[in-house]
């Protein structure tokens, strides 16, 4: 057999034609990192990683790490909702987590993820904001939910949402007493079950994200950063513990048939169930 006119090493091939390199794998039903197309990366959840926060958690999905801290502060309520507190979620993608991100004001992606999470928390009524009221019209709790990405390797939405839900479950706020314009917390310096309360979460939405690769509509579960850059679109499906949908987002070039969407919902149901198991382990 004649030798080809020129040849590459696999790593050169990958750099020159990332999509074609990837296609060679997907046609065989695997991915360059050894995963099957429908496999999610190993996931771990750690609760209470920041001792100074009211609640915190760290979630790792493969190479993506997100740390989330919840801080409760006292604020004045809005005039049109005098008995409701606030929930302020924010996702930070700093240059520390990937060279993709530049220093300065939050990138479009960070803002879009923050907004998507804000909508999930608000629209699916995760928390009754009336629970955060201290004294009507005078003082309410405001929960700053900050998720910071420490290492970015794709699928930030799943990781950030899981970290935020785990941190909210972990929240412990000292019981306040309101007296003539001042708020006091009593009962020593450490939070115990008597002098503090936990949040009463109506549901815990968790998500599963899929990338759409090629016109053949190959569905890749839990895309990493390389898969994200060469993919033609993404589907994110958010579900609560009863299997009720809390959000569906499909974005990008490839137009997706209903059957593809149905497969993704099924796969997302399995994944969120597994993720819930991991979250409840500790």
């Amino acid at each position, binding site marked *: 057999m004649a030798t080809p006119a020129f040849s590459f090493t696999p790593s050169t091939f990958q750099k020159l034609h990332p999509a074609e390199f990837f296609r060679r794998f997907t046609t065989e039903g695997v991915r360059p990192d050894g995963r099957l197309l429908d496999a999610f990366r190993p996931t771990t959840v750690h609760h209470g990683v920041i001792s100074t926060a009211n609640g915190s958690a760290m979630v790792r999905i493969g190479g993506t790490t997100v740390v989330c801290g919840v801080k409760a502060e006292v604020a004045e309520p809005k005039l049109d909702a005098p008995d409701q507190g606030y929930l302020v979620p924010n996702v930070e993608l700093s240059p520390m987590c990937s060279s993709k991100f530049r220093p300065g004001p939050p990138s*479009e*992606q960070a*803002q*879009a993820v*923050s*907004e*998507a999470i*804000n*909508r*999930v928390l608000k*629209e*699916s*009524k995760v928390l009754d904001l009336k629970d955060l009221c201290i004294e009507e019209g005078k003082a309410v709790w405001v929960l700053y939910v900050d998720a910071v990405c420490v290492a970015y390797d794709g699928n930030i939405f799943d990781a950030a949402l899981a970290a935020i839900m785990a941190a909210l479950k972990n929240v412990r706020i000292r019981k306040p007493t309101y007296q003539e314009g001042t708020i006091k917390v009593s009962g020593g310096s450490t939070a115990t079950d008597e002098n503090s309360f936990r949040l009463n979460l109506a549901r815990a939405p968790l998500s599963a994200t899929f990338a759409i690769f090629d016109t053949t509509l190959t569905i890749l579960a839990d895309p990493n950063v390389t898969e994200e850059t060469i993919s*033609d*679109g993404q589907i994110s499906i958010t579900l*609560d513990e009863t299997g*009720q*949908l*809390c*959000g*569906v*987002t*499909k*974005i*990008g*070039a490839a*137009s*997706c*048939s*209903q*059957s593809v*969407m*149905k497969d993704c*919902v099924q796969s997302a149901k399995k994944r969120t169930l597994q993720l819930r198991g991991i979250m409840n382990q500790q």
Partner: protein
Amino acid sequence: MSRLDRTRTSAHQLRPFFSSQNLLNRADGSAQFDFGESSVMCSVVGPAEVKLRDEKLDRATIEVVVRPLVGLPGIKDKAREQALRETLEPLVLSGLHPRTGIQIVVQTMKDDGSILATAFNATILALLDAGIPLKSILGAVTCIVDAETNQILLDPTTQELANAKSTHTFVFDNKSSITSDSTQEDKEAVEVSTLYSDSTGLFSEEEYFECAQICYKAVQAVHGFIRTAVQKKLEKEQQQIHS
């Protein structure tokens, strides 16, 4: 059943459309699209020079700017910019204009619900007006599931959105659309392909796919409207050339 806005009699009725193209003198293309009392204006400039940092060697860079009705753009508008850009980028044949930029500015003029869908429709009309080569056109429609009646209401107003259990926005391209000469069988067989979908609230799987079906049927009217709008505009231009 009468709707909350009292002008419509059915749950699956859209509000009257209105569109007008070539409104702005200084832009290469512009359009306004209305769903009843919701109105969005869009301008397109390009292919034009692009900042060196954003330049792409093999295709045009598409920039989308979303301006809210009042105040400064917030994270909601940023999220909309991303949604619009990632849906339009593959639709535009950007390879024909390498190393250039296409800037799309979307401004809400009146807000009475379904703004994202209105914005999608305004943008596609503005791109057509600017003569930017496209692979296909798109059409967008929003629907809600009412919290009390569990009924699916198309093209909701702000008032109806306040009573929604879940909100769904769908965008479909016209590659697989139902045409007037296709038979009943064809209409049944056509598979619904979603280009963009965004749903929030609490809903079941069945509700989601039912909403997709209903919106898909409704979008055919939007596609038809866009086609007529372009046809009329071209006829007018032809007349001007020959007169």
